[in-house]
């Protein structure tokens, strides 16, 4: 097994490679404005680090957000296309789950909020309970101003860039700040294992099982204004 995990929902353009027993390579670039530039080179780099060819990959997992739309789409279309070109299964996972999972991997337990930058002075947020076995999400992801989250939520330890951007509303910043491809890959392998019928070889079950589909979590409607003429430079 060689699972390639991709996420572009946060500031990190991140890729992880997992061989079924551990993360064998990871590459992240922090650049919120250049997702499409860095993602493919990062994928190339993790494969090279692991001494693998694209054709050796057996599974693809992408973070489906929520995240700022433009960057988020880069990861999803990349994962979908890469998997299609090689005839591989591709699955989606909620990106916020990967942040909570990394906090869990680092030993954190108890309640946790993940709040990431949604731009426009808002955050994407979800609440988790980090138990002995795993991190469980206990609320659906939302988008709102940090200060509009319930007071008891805001008082909890909070991962993601939300508390860095809105320290007053979210005073308890904890690591990590962004999604890491390695944590996403690890989470994906665990979800697979949970959904596998028994010990032995990992195998994929029905597409939805333990995964979140491949549709981006936009959580916002598009702004319904036509492009101004100056940017509408190629109609036709």
């Amino acid at each position, binding site marked *: 097994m060689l699972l390639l995990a991709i996420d572009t929902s946060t500031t990190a353009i991140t890729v992880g490679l997992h061989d079924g027993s551990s993360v064998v390579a990871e590459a992240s670039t922090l650049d919120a404005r250049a997702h499409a530039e860095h993602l493919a080179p990062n994928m190339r780099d993790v494969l090279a680090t692991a001494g693998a060819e694209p054709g050796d990959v057996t599974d693809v997992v992408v973070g489906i957000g929520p995240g700022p739309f433009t960057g988020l789409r880069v990861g999803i279309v990349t994962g979908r296309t890469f998997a299609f070109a090689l005839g591989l299964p591709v699955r989606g996972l909620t990106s916020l789950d990967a942040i909570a999972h990394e906090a869990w991997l680092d030993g954190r337990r108890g309640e946790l909020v993940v709040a990431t930058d949604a731009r426009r002075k808002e955050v994407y947020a979800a609440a988790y309970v980090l138990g002995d076995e795993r991190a469980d999400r206990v609320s659906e992801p939302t988008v709102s101003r940090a200060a509009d989250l319930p007071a008891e939520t805001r008082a909890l330890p909070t991962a993601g860039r939300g508390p860095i951007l809105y320290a007053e509303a979210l005073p308890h910043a904890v690591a990590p700040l962004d999604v890491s491809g390695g944590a996403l890959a690890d989470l994906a392998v665990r979800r697979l294992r949970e959904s596998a019928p028994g010990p032995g070889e990992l195998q994929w079950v029905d597409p939805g099982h333990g995964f979140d589909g491949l549709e981006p979590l936009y959580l916002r409607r*598009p702004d319904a204004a036509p492009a101004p003429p100056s940017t509408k430079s190629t109609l*036709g």
Partner: protein
Amino acid sequence: MSDEPLVLGIETSCDETGVGIVRGQTLLVDTVASSVEEHARFGGVVPEVASRAHLEAMVPTIERACREAGVRLRDLDAISVTSGPGLAGALLVGVASAKALALALGKPIYGVNHLASHVAVDIVEHGPLPEPTMAMLVSGGHSSLLLVPDVTNDVRSLGSTMDDAAGEAFDKVARVLGLPFPGGPHVDRAAREGNRIAIDFPRGLTTGRDMERHRFDFSFSGLKTAVARWVETRQRAGEAVPVADVAASFQEAVVDVLTRKALLACKEHDVDHLLIGGGVAANSRLRALAEERCAKAGVTLRVPRPGLCTDNGAMVAALGAQMVAKGRLPSDLGLPTDSSMPVTLVQA
């Protein structure tokens, strides 16, 4: 690599998800998924709506193109993709997808200019481009006169619009006349019933000092305003608006300026081939007047069929195939998108 390279081209600069496959100078397939209907009620392209539609259409469109052409991805020689100009978020979807294909398949990638692609597409329709060729690109986004000594690395801009693109003027006049978006085909249809010399609308940048300073530039904003005023005056006086005559007279003003300047450029640069591309090239009156004036001037006119004039993947594949055939080096896997990529930059 063969001189008949098999290239898949991806185009997502605006509201159409285009995937085309070309072998050398032969078009194998041109597949387009359009989100134009989703934009119609806004009277223009909504960038976020277009980007969302590109994401959903991308892989299915690649799949359909390969199936219809009977091409296996692993047999491709290269991937080419529009890296600009265009809507930033829309371009990103196509470029990311193209990179994923190139990486997965171990193929070279060419990030190419959308406008040069509009020129190159005629190679799969009418054969090799004479060097140089004069190209006029007219659409909702561009109105450019280009001198093209070599479409793979030497494209020179002689002029472009100072304000509205020609197609944009069609959209706006259509709105004034109560015709649907996109305006081009509707104005064209209405104009067929009208008298094109009924109203003498202004021809921008065609006289005196304008002609010296902006010899090959265009301006359609004044024309658009003149049409709106003319219609308003009628409406205020309680008179019926002769839609067909307004459409025909407006259209005549646009195509008169376009063809006049294009032929002047041919004459002054001693070029005997004129290529017209872009969505407005589908306009029947533009084609007719260009044919008439080219014939008179001894210039050979080339216009791709309408389906290849609007944005499509075939044009990107056609340019990519030229790049490969001419031995141009591929782009880096880190190639950026550039929403305002200059026309003189053929490759990213």
